[in-house]
């Protein structure tokens, strides 16, 4: 049913070896009032795979991620995570969300808590980790992402890039099977984008399964095993970066990429692919 059937131990475009199916979305529909936002999304993501969703604002990228996390109730379709259907009637939503991390465009850190408390809240209250253990694990994670010195600071004392990295650490502290990133660099000053993308790159290397909605085409081309181009609530094109960027099948994909180039937001691998075709 999925567009890109995945078998165990395949090799992704990024060179990582992929595992079993991590996420399967079938016939997903979602609307807000009269506005039909998602019109039958099918998508399969393998373990260790990185899938980037691209598309214009309003094409449904964020809504899709929020539906996978069940922050938005869906109208029709199925979402299966690690072989378990999470859209069934008697799914424990809180249970499912533990396994799916999401990082938001506006960070959404808790402003009344220090960074370390932001990170340890869910492990302590949801996973019932002892306070000392949660604290140590959080510090290890913060150190890994260069934030251990900011552990006792409040979010408003951190730069945008540091806040977003803290938000990523907070999601990772729950040891999710799947990480969803919702335009996490869109709210950042340009000079802070790189430090956040570097974190994502490291996560990809370490084998984290990720679905990333992004406007950073260069980054998407570098990191993704697959690119999905969304338009008006449908996945119009789905393939490895070299194909989607270098030889888009759909005219509308080409138009979108052309607009992106004109706005000067193209860089890295994706630009190389595109230049080849011109």
């Amino acid at each position, binding site marked *: 049913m999925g567009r890109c059937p995945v078998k165990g131990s395949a090799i992704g475009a990024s060179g990582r070896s992929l595992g079993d199916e991590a996420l399967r979305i079938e016939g997903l529909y979602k609307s807000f009032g009269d506005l039909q936002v998602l019109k039958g999304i099918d998508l399969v993501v393998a373990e260790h795979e990185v899938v980037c969703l691209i598309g214009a604002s309003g094409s449904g990228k964020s809504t899709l991620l929020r539906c996978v996390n069940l922050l938005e109730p869906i109208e029709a379709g199925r979402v299966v995570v690690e072989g378990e259907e999470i859209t069934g009637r008697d799914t424990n939503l*809180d249970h499912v969300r533990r396994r799916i*991390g999401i990082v938001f465009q*506006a960070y959404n850190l*808790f402003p009344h808590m220090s960074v370390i408390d932001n990170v340890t*809240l869910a492990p302590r209250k949801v996973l019932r980790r002892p306070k000392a253990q949660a604290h140590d694990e959080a510090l290890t994670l913060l150190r890994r992402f260069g934030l251990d010195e900011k552990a006792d600071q409040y979010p408003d004392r951190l730069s*945008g890039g540091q806040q977003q990295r803290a938000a990523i650490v*907070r999601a990772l502290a729950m040891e999710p099977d799947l990480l969803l990133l919702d335009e996490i660099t869109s709210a950042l000053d340009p000079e802070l984008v790189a430090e956040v993308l570097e974190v994502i790159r490291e996560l990809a290397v370490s084998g984290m399964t990720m679905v990333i909605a992004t406007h950073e085409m260069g980054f998407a081309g570098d990191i993704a095993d697959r690119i999905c181009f969304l338009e008006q609530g449908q996945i119009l094109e789905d393939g490895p970066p070299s194909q989607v960027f270098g030889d888009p099948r759909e005219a509308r994909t080409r138009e979108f990429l052309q607009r992106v180039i004109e706005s000067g937001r193209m860089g890295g691998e994706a630009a190389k692919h595109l230049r080849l075709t011109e």
Partner: protein
Amino acid sequence: MSETKPAHPSRSRRISEALRHPPPGAKAVAIATTSTIVLLVVVGFVVINSPGWERVQSSFFDFDVFGERFEQLVYAFRINIQIFLISQAMILVCGLLLAVMRSLESPVFFPFRAAATIYIDVFRGVPSILVIFLLGFGVPALRIPGTTNDPFFWAVVALTLIWSAYVAEVYRAGIESVHPSQNAAARSLGLSATQSMRYVVLPQAVRRVIPPLLNDSIGLLKDTALVSFIGAVEIFRRAQIVQAATFNFTVYVIVAIIFLLLTIPMARFVDWLVARDRRRQWAGAR
């Protein structure tokens, strides 16, 4: 030169702006002081020269009565303070429970939400004095075994019922002021709705509504005078007793002054808190 042909138009605009809103310097203080004194003199002149002033002065501003009765009234005021402190503690808890009940979103909780809404509508809509009367006189009249007719008890109950409704609305405004993305972030980490409310939404909400809560505290403190009507001998009732014996109204002025000695510092404290929050917000803004 700069008057006829400004070298920089935006600079001249800035200067004229500055003239319209001068900084609060010595000149501003002098003007404020003068205008205040002029106003006080005019008002004082009108009052003192009014035909009834002598009689008002002897019955409302009798310094002998002031000296004799001040201590006695301060002593009676301790009843008001007791009623205030006990009801305030209960109001803060009950108000929060009502606010949370009203904020429950799941359809399962509809009866709770409806009950809280009706409760708040009723107790905000009925004059306080009626609630105090109905409880203070009505419930003891039922003569249910085990119920008390202690006016102090019913005063605390009545004020708690009334002010919990107001305070619930203050809390609810705070809960609604916390951006939904905070709840989304908490839920996405696997926290339950209750945990999200408890650890993420409420701490932020309560912090934001401390100034309006203190405002309601001032209202509650003033309302403690109403319980004199069901027989609690607090400051206002004591003043009425003294007034009836001496035929002098100075005691009421004393009562007003005693209330102001507490309520004015409370009001200034609220202003200070609001100003501090505003400074913090500006400092935190990027």
